[in-house]
Each structure stands twice: as structure tokens, then as C-alpha cells.
């Protein structure tokens, strides 16, 4: 039987990224994907004729440009188009918008608070300082602070130097920032409730935190540290939907000689004599390999694909305790035309951006309370976008695709497990709320896909439906991701690795975990170790 150099479990974008780097290094790589399609949470599917949905993730910023360049992804169809602005609508028919033009943006904030408008530049400089600090770490293996190995010491020294470069005030600011709540962070700059609410959303997307929870400021940073063509914090659409990112990675992989098998669910990793020997598929087929890298989340990798007996008990315990709480849902809607929004001019450029209806931090917290109580939010936070306003390939001309990301949706409900009826009721909650702002929305709906954490878990394989493959809190970031001592992409079985969003630098369509893991694997295989 043929022995591959590396088997990658899961054709999520990180698995594909790792595989492409490995194949380009001359290794024989096979990717095994459970679903009949690739992409994991970076996927585009046509569920209604003529309409392409970005079924899970919907916008791109985190995907590292170094990876696009290394793997030549534009050649395989990757095109990212930045979008313009965004707005938060209010019940009384007004809104606050963000515009790309600085002066337009300032005037718009000033409509609500002249003071806050002037504070905005201070706020963005503070966010940018944090971005400058963290961005160089994204494509680096996190150094282990307890290690005395030269590479760890070098890594720590680099971080230490970047930290010192912040200056005394910047150092204090940074230490506070990493543990701070978004509400406290915003209070330092803004006083108007609507202005604050407008900037709050990215601090709670995908997490089990509210804007008043410590750590939520970092989640905002996680959404700002990306870029589109050098504009830090900018977001864009992948032409053809987020699946186009995965397809371009697959293109690069195949061009480098790698292969992908879909409909190939891995049941377990085969370990012989304390080293990896390959994997067994659910139908019993065994495929051998010198190394296995899992793109699944930490929980699944350790608790489902591996035998507890092959691993240290502490690691198994860490996997069981790994915070991977689901908190999000998603609606994908095919629309017969462009809906109108009360009070918003039809030609407002901000409509091409992200739309929201949560007006105060208080409302965010109430939505969060529902989640803690085991219910979906009665007035959820939505991140609503109409990608077809920008990307003409998503729908037939004149029709539109609406993507609605919804926060908060618990993985389990207080009154028992999710059912299809409850899922539909959840969908109705969202549409009813939005109909207050867009009276013609309901009549335009041709088809709607509703996804709760249950669907995300079952269809994408994200435990509890956690979109980041694990909570983005300081206790689970950097050298603590996914668990202390295991942040360098290796598991303590020779030849066993992880490359999913459960590893540093975490979730989002970023590719960095995959690229970092590949670098470690290549180094090990070259050194002849672990193989």
C-alpha cells in the first residue's frame, strides 16, 4: 500500500493552505474531506438556482496576503473586492453610517455627536497601534515562554522588543487592552450610545462574550488586524463567494501535485508504536502516511479522532475543557430584488457594506443575556450584508443575495435540543425584527437557508458551532492556543499535527494556522524527526 508523506484531515481553508505549502515543498499530500464539497466554513454553494451563497463566512480581511502571494492564489481565481462602509439603523428611522471617505465619515458621526466625531481619529490610532503590535505575530509560530530553546528565546525577544517600542504609555495601554471589555475601551473615546453601538459589533461576533465582558476588546482587534491590499482593517468580498478562496487554494494544491478526496470522513488516526501510521476512514479503509495533520478543531482532533490512551491525560483534559461555545447563526437569503430600508436613501454607498440594527450597548448585553439563558436572542445582533451589490457573480441580474450573521444563538436550548421547527422559529425572529427596518424584505424572499449551531456542527464539523474553532480569549490565544505546551502545531505523538483555527492565531478565514503548521511539518520532515 502506498504511503503518503502527509495526510491532511479536512479540506477547510486551513487544511488546504497547509496542504498547498506541503505539496509545494515537494511532499506527497492527500487531503481527506468528510463533505462532498471542500472549504469547511469558507464555502460557497448554490442551494437555489442561479444564486451562490457564502454559506458560513461571508467577508474576507484576515486571509494573509503573504499566503495569497506565496501560493499564487490569483492565478487560481482569487479576487478580493473591498466593500464600502456600513451602517447601523435606528428604530426612529435614522442611521449612522461609516464611509471610506474620511471627511464624509467624520461629518456622519458629527450628526450624532460632534465630540465623538473628533474623537474618532484618536480611537482609530489606538486600534492601529494594537494592530501594529499583533500583525507580525500572525505568521509566526508562538514562542513558548517556558522554553529555553533558541527559537523560542528569539521569538520572545522579538515580541519583547515590539512591546518596548510601544513606549511606556503604549505598554500600559496594550496590557489593559488585551484583557479589557469593548464597552470600557469605547468609553475612553466616545459618549454617544449609538456611536458606541455602531463600533461594538466586531467585539462579540462569534464569541460567548458580551461587550461588557473582559476580553471582548481583543475580539474587536481580531476583526481589525486583517487588511485588503494594505488597508488595515478593511474587509472585502471574494469574487464568487468565500468558497472561491478555498477553490483557489485547491487549485494551488493540485498544481503542486497534491490531491483531495471528498466524501472521505476520517474515523480515526492510526497510531503504531507511539507514532502516526495513517488514518482509517469511516468505511474502514486505511490510508498510510508518515505524518497526519488535522484541520478539525482541537476537541474533535483529540477526543474523536485519537485514542485517549495514545495521549497524555492532561492534554485530553485540556481538550475537554477547551472553550468552544457556539453563539452564532446564519441566514442566507435569495431575494427577488433589492429591499429598501426605512430612512436610508437607496443610493447610500454604505448599503454596500455591513448593516446593523443594534442601537446601544445595553441592547447587545440583553441579547447576550438570552444566550446565557439558553435562548436565541429575542432582538439579536445582526451583521447583514448584500454581497450581490458588489459581486455580480452571486445572483442573476437585478436579484440579490442577503447574508445575515446572527449573534447570539446557543448551541443548546434551555427547553431541549434544537429541532427543525425551532430553527425555523429562530429564522422568523430575525426576519420579523428586520422587517421593522425593511418592510418589503419578507415579500422579496425566494429561498432562505437558516443555520443554527446545530447545522454548523453537523454540516461543517465545528464543535458546538463555534465559528472560530474555539473561543478567542487570552487564556486560549498565542502560546495558550489550543492548550499550554501544544501551541506549536504538534501533538505528542510522532507525526501528528494540527492546522485548524483551534491553533494560533485562531479563527477567521486567515490561512495563517495552516501556513504556520506546514512550516513546522516541513522542518520536522526535513530534519528526519518525527517521521
Amino acid at each position, binding site marked *: 500500500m502506498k504511503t503518503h508523506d502527509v495526510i491532511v484531515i479536512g479540506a477547510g481553508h486551513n487544511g488546504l493552505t497547509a496542504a498547498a505549502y506541503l505539496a509545494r515543498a515537494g511532499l506527497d499530500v492527500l487531503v481527506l474531506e468528510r463533505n462532498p464539497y471542500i472549504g469547511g466554513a469558507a464555502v460557497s454553494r448554490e442551494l437555489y438556482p442561479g444564486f451562490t451563497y457564502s454559506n458560513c463566512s461571508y467577508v474576507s480581511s484576515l486571509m494573509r*496576503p503573504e499566503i495569497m502571494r506565496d501560493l499564487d492564489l490569483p492565478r487560481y481565481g482569487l479576487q478580493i*473586492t473591498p466593500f464600502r462602509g456600513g451602517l447601523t439603523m435606528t428604530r426612529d428611522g435614522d442611521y449612522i453610517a461609516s464611509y471610506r471617505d474620511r471627511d464624509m465619515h467624520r461629518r456622519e458621526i458629527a450628526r450624532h455627536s460632534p465630540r465623538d466625531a473628533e474623537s474618532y481619529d484618536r480611537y482609530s490610532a489606538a486600534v492601529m497601534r494594537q494592530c501594529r503590535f499583533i500583525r507580525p505575530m500572525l505568521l509566526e509560530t508562538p514562542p513558548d515562554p517556558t522554553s529555553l530553546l533558541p527559537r523560542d528565546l528569539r521569538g520572545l525577544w522579538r515580541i519583547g522588543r515590539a512591546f518596548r517600542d510601544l513606549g511606556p504609555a503604549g505598554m500600559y495601554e496594550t496590557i489593559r487592552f488585551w484583557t479589557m471589555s469593548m464597552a470600557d475601551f469605547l468609553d475612553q473615546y466616545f459618549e454617544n450610545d449609538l456611536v458606541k453601538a455602531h463600533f461594538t459589533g466586531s467585539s462579540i461576533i462569534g464569541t460567548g462574550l458580551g461587550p461588557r465582558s473582559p476580553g471582548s476588546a481583543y475580539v474587536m482587534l481580531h476583526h481589525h488586524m486583517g487588511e485588503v491590499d494594505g488597508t488595515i482593517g478593511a474587509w472585502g468580498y471574494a469574487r464568487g463567494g468565500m468558497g472561491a478562496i478555498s477553490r483557489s487554494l485547491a487549485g494551488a494544491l493540485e498544481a503542486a501535485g497534491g490531491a483531495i478526496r471528498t466524501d472521505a470522513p476520517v474515523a480515526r488516526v492510526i497510531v503504531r508504536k507511539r507514532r502516526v501510521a495513517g488514518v482509517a476512514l469511516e468505511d474502514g479503509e486505511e490510508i498510510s502516511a508518515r505524518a497526519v495533520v488535522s484541520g478539525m478543531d482541537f476537541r474533535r482532533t483529540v477526543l474523536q479522532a485519537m485514542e485517549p490512551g495514545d495521549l497524555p491525560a492532561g492534554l485530553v483534559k485540556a481538550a475537554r475543557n477547551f472553550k468552544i461555545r457556539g453563539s452564532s447563526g446564519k441566514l442566507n437569503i435569495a431575494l427577488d430584488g433589492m429591499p429598501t430600508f426605512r430612512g436610508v436613501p437607496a443610493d447610500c454607498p454604505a448599503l454596500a457594506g455591513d448593516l446593523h440594527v443594534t442601537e446601544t450597548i445595553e441592547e447587545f448585553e440583553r441579547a447576550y443575556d438570552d444566550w446565557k439563558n439558553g435562548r436565541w436572542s429575542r432582538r439579536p445582533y445582526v451583521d447583514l450584508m448584500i454581497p450581490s451589490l458588489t*459581486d455580480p457573480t452571486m445572483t442573476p441580474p437585478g436579484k440579490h443575495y442577503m447574508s445575515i450573521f446572527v449573534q447570539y444563538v446557543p448551541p443548546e436550548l434551555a427547553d431541549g435540543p434544537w429541532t427543525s421547527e425551532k430553527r425555523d422559529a429562530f429564522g422568523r425572529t430575525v426576519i420579523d425584527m428586520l422587517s421593522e427596518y425593511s418592510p418589503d424584505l419578507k415579500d422579496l424572499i425566494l429561498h432562505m437557508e437558516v443555520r443554527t449551531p446545530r447545522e454548523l456542527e453537523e454540516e461543517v464539523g465545528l464543535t458546538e458551532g463555534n465559528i472560530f474553532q474555539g473561543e478567542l480569549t487570552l487564556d486560549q490565544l498565542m502560546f495558550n492556543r489550543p492548550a499550554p505546551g501544544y501551541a506549536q502545531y504538534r501533538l505528542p505523538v510522532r507525526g501528528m499535527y494540527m492546522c485548524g483555527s483551534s491553533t494560533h492565531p485562531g479563527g477567521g478565514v486567515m490561512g495563517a494556522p495552516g501556513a504556520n503548521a506546514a512550516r513546522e511539518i516541513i522542518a520536522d520532515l526535513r530534519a528526519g524527526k518525527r517521521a
Partner: protein
Amino acid sequence: MTAGARHEAPLLKTPFHPRTAVLNQAKQWGRWAGYATVACFTELAHEYFAIRHAATLFDVSPMKKYRISGTDAERYLNRLLTRDVRKLRTDRVAYAVWCNDDGKVLDDGTVFRLGEKEVLLMAQERHLAWLQDSAFGYDATIEDVSEAIAGLALQGPLSCTVLKAMELDGIAQLKPFGIARFDLSGTPLTVSRTGYTGDLGYELWTEPDKALELWDRLMAAGALYRLTPIGSRALDLARIEAGFIQANVDFIAADHSVRMTRQRSPFELGLDWMVDFDKGHFVGRRALLRERETGPRYRLVGLDIEGSKPAAGALVYYGRARQVGLVTSAAWSPTAKRNIALATLQAPFADKTDGLWAEIYVNKELKWEKTAARCRIVTRPFFDPPRRRATPAPDF
């Protein structure tokens, strides 16, 4: 030009001005051949991405257009241009350069073969004097028809879709560099599958008094396809990605240069493929034959530069100290996701696979930082989508 305009305004208005002026929210104008042209209507990013993503309109009316007619039109052009015009069939377009007697490039442009005895030559610069002087002894009449033809470039992946929505029958079958003729309520409308973006695209030509009707019909047809008017800044980014050179940016037109050493031959501009020594005599042939023996002094190349900071104007070094060239056009390419540049290098350094560095200065909050960025010579175009060549043209 109307009489009143002689002293009233330094810049003239193109036939599309009534539309472009209204749409120009950013109030950024540029000048081109004596006309006011829009540099940016709204936001550079918005306009640039529309080129690669949807469809765009750019007013090319200021382009200099020379009509060459007469029984010797073909013979005349074959002597003028370095490539073989006899191979250019009616209703086809070709890219071309022409040189002076020393084999130095005067300009580049496009040749539209409208008939056996009629050709249009389009260029960025003015050439009436040279063209007429060269006509001595030929039955060829050269007229400047620039003001008689209004032009719009419709470029982008949805450009064919827009033309289909405008009901231009059979447009999808038009091959790259082909010309098709249509009717615009009684006036001829000429469509060529040409452009400056390196993408799927067309150029539409008609009489100036039909310009606004053409604009309106295109915008109406394009309403569902995100048809976006664009300015010259967005176009410039696309043309760098396409790897196209521009006169007086990437080379100095020979007859404008004061310093003779700045003049460049087609070989030096990387246009070897356009020089056809087999076709018989043409202007500059002897000098170019000599140069073919001795080799060019310079080479215009495409560079892929490490990092993301555009290398505009950067000096190029071989090793740390030896200065070997200059970047003439540079950009971060949002579509190729590379830091690209066009550069002129001393010929011996134009096949180096290693050791080339661009010196880039970046102003970081009032602190200049100098970086040496590694350069790799790469083939152009930097971005080359299959849709550019596909016939029938794809829908998007």
C-alpha cells in the same frame, strides 16, 4: 474647437463632458492632450475594482486619431511601422510602434484597419507632422480626425454582458482585436475588442454629436451590471497590471527627448516581437538591424518586488552598490496580489535571476525609511485572465 474656447479655458471639454462633469463627485480632473479628463469620480478603489470585477466606462475621446487613406495607405504604413501591416486584415486592430531613422521609438499606438485603403492610427501623443512628412511620395492622405470621433472604453468582465444588454447582435463572437459595426439610431457605431486594461473589454467609437446618446444607452444597459464610470487613476493601475508601457512615462518619445541617450529602440522596450525584418524596408530598419547585431543597451522588464510598498521611481541595484536601472511605473497590484513594477535595466542585468534590489523610500509618520527590496524579473502581463481572450466572450 469652438472659437470662443481659444482663450477661455486652458482645457477643452470632451463630447462626454456634460455627463462626466456631473458624475465627478471627487472633483479630481487630469489633463490629456489638451482636454480635461476625470482622474477619479468617487474613490480610486471603487473604480479600480469595477474594472476587474464588473464593467467600467472611460472616456478616450482625447486620444489622437489619424486617418490614413489612399491607394498607398497600406504601403505607407508598412514603411512607417515596424510590424507587417499587410498581415492586418480589414476590421482588425493591431498594436504597433514606429521609429525614427535611428530606430528609436516615436510612440506606440493602435492601428485600425477599416478597409483596403483606409486605416486609423491612434496614439497618446501628437504626430501629424511626422506622419505627413513620411507621406511624401505616397498616395496617402493623413488627416487628424481626433475631434471627429468620440470614444469610450468599456472594460471589465461584464463588458460583453453590457453590450448584449444594449442589443449589439453577435457581439459575443467578436474576437480580440476585431472590429464590428453597428448602428446608433442612424449613425455608425464602431466597436473594437481592444483596450488598455488587459481584461475583457471593448472600445466604442462614434460621432461626437452622438456621444451623449451612446453614454446614456450604455449606462442604461449597464444599470444591472454595476457599470461604473472610471477616471485615469484607476485605469493607470489596470494598465500597469496589464504590463502596458506608456509614452513619456516608461519611455521618452524619441522626438521629444532633449538628451539623445534617453531614446529607446523597440528592443530596448521589450517589443522585439513587433519588429519584422522580413517585410522589406521600414523606417529605422537599418539602425535596428545593427542593434540586433550589437545588442540593445537597455531592457524594459517586469519586476515582482518583495514587500508591499510600491517602488515608484526606485533605483534598481545589482548587489548592494551597482546602480543598474530605474523603475518607471509601479503599484501594489490588488488583483495579482503582488508588488509589481516596470523598470528599465542596463541590458546585461536584464537576465539576472538573483541579486537585483529596488531602493524604496517609505515615509512612516514623518520618518523616512529606506528599504532594499529584492526584485525578481517576471513575464508580463502581471495579471492575465482567460476571459481576455475567450471567444465567445464570457458573461462575467
